[in-house]
């Protein structure tokens, strides 16, 4: 990977982080903002996978969806506006945070039902194959999806029909907390393997490892060899199931990558040893790919963009309430 690509991964992850931090700010400011499932801590998986895709590849995501859309360049103003239920939102305020839809950058329906995204992605793959498209389909989903029968059925369908779909599973079912899945399998990937789907498992905190594996997986799928199951193991960010908006690990300061005195609080350990963005920053510095100033400059740009997008969204109007029952034609 060249410098530009490695910096692109950094910028992509940071864009996601800054976006989610602003979502927390919005959730604190507006009581009607729905329950948030934030992508903080999973940026390595999302950025690593999404930057391996083409613009016209079709993805379906779960409730934890913001990261992928930001990674692939969905308009952040429209995303914030959707989260705020505004008329200028990606879905004109009809969908809200769980259902952000942006076909222009490859995002079809986002389902908040566990098992929804994997099954829809298999459908997209079928549609793309029948239309002889060069694009592939991507299912972004969590380990919880393999608890649901439809997850298994979807894997089977894809394998049977040799569909062009990348199964991108983010496994944060780590011991210690109540896991988001309860699977008797010794390893999640035994399930797709039993259905004759090739699999690979990577460390989701290592964005370069994810990206390399995703590129291989995408090439496999795009070449017509059928589905591939890529599993990124993750450690859950402490706020990942928050009901009330909060910053358990604080706002990320990029300087934490070189100045650990800035790190404190209950979750200092997570920040120090796990945070995928700081980890990648450290690598870039250690391998002299970038300087501290270069990284700070990226952050400044990203933060400014994000803030502007959020502020514009906050000023944007609501849809006309009495249009609620109007259907789209």
């Amino acid at each position: 990977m060249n410098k530009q690509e490695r910096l692109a991964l950094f910028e992509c992850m940071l864009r996601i982080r800054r976006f989610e931090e602003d979502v927390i700010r919005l959730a604190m400011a507006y009581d009607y903002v729905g329950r948030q499932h934030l992508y903080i801590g999973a940026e390595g998986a999302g950025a690593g996978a999404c930057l391996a895709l083409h613009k016209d590849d079709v993805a379906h995501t779960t409730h934890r969806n913001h990261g992928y859309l930001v990674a692939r360049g969905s308009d952040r103003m429209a995303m914030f506006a959707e989260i705020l239920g505004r008329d200028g939102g990606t879905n004109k305020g009809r969908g809200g945070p769980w259902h952000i839809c942006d076909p222009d950058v490859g995002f079809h329906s986002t389902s908040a039902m566990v098992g929804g995204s994997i099954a829809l992605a298999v459908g997209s793959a079928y549609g793309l194959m029948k239309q002889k498209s060069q694009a592939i389909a991507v299912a972004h989903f969590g380990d919880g999806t393999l608890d649901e029968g439809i997850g298994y059925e979807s894997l089977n369908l894809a394998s049977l029909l040799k569909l062009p779909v990348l199964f991108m599973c983010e496994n944060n079912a780590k011991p210690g907390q109540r896991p988001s899945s309860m699977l008797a399998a010794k390893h999640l990937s035994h399930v797709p393997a039993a259905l004759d789907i090739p699999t690979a498992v990577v460390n989701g905190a290592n964005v370069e490892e994810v990206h390399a594996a995703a590129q291989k997986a995408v090439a496999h799928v795009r070449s017509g060899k059928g589905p591939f199951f890529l599993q990124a193991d993750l450690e859950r960010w402490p706020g990942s199931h928050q009901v009330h908006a909060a910053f358990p690990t604080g706002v990320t300061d990029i300087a934490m990558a070189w100045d650990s005195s800035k790190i404190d609080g209950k979750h200092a350990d997570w920040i120090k040893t796990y945070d995928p963005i700081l980890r990648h920053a450290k690598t870039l510095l250690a391998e002299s790919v970038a300087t501290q100033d270069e990284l700070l400059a990226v952050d400044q740009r990203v933060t400014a963009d994000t803030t502007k997008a959020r502020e514009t969204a906050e000023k944007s109007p609501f849809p006309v309430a009495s249009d609620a029952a109007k259907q789209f034609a």
Partner: protein
Amino acid sequence: MTEMNFAEALVDALCVAMDADPKVSIIGRGISGHGAEAGADKRLVPYGDRVLDPPTSEAAVAMLALGASMTGLRMFHHFGSGVFAFEAWNQVVNEAANARYMSGGRLKSPVTYCMFHGLRQGGGPQHSASPHGAYAHNPGLEIVMPATPADAKGLVLTSIYSDNATVMLVHPTLLALRAEVPAGDYRVPFGKAAVHRQGKDVTIVALSRQVTEAMKAADILAQEGIDAEVVDPRTLVPLDETGILASVKKTGRLVIADEGPSFGSASEIAAMVAEKGFSSLKAPVARVNRPHTPVPFSPEMEAFLTPDAAKIAAAARRTVAA
């Protein structure tokens, strides 16, 4: 116009659509059932893999259809029995039904889910459901119930070319029904009731197979001097409220014949008239439904529960006498 049976009309519609549009794609087998009309499906064989025979995975297959429809295919997915589609309930009523609206209109979802419903003689407790009312209860779906071969063809084509998710329910005992069917790309509009018989004494709103029974009932009633109007809404969502209200305004009396149990389609039609056509009503509304019970296998018990011409005629007589 050619005479054909209902099963042939269904399949004819699929062939017309596939011939006209390469994006039309089908999932399922046994579209013409497992009885004497099953042979109609043979016309689909030349379409090869445009007709997918799926595994017994109703939920994932329904989503395959929906996801594919979002990429531009026009999907027609036949589940077989409506009770098998229960395995895909969330996928149809919560995923497909909401898909277009919740995208703010950015996605289209041209998928049609077709299935058999009804008291079919010997279906027993688990294979006799008539779930159209429950589907209609979920906003975002178009609900279609053809009662004649021509409507079968015309409604299939309208469903396929609709950009919304549509659920079509077919009564297997209708498959053998023969009648004239228009050739080519014949479409029946949604939301427009068919008045199968004009009358002035009582309106019988009937759905699916009960249209046939209502026509028989009207014959019986005619001999007794009661002039019944038979109205088939054809689509439950959208419902032709104007058409139904106009008929009730003329007759002042309403009987609704539907195989579904209470809390369903007949309830909605009765409620709608009690709200919007109250001043037209000269007598209590009457519903001819299956009673609110699981369906026994035993044949005489099943017959006892099944709405038919005699029960419709009896209800109409009561209503006219009231």
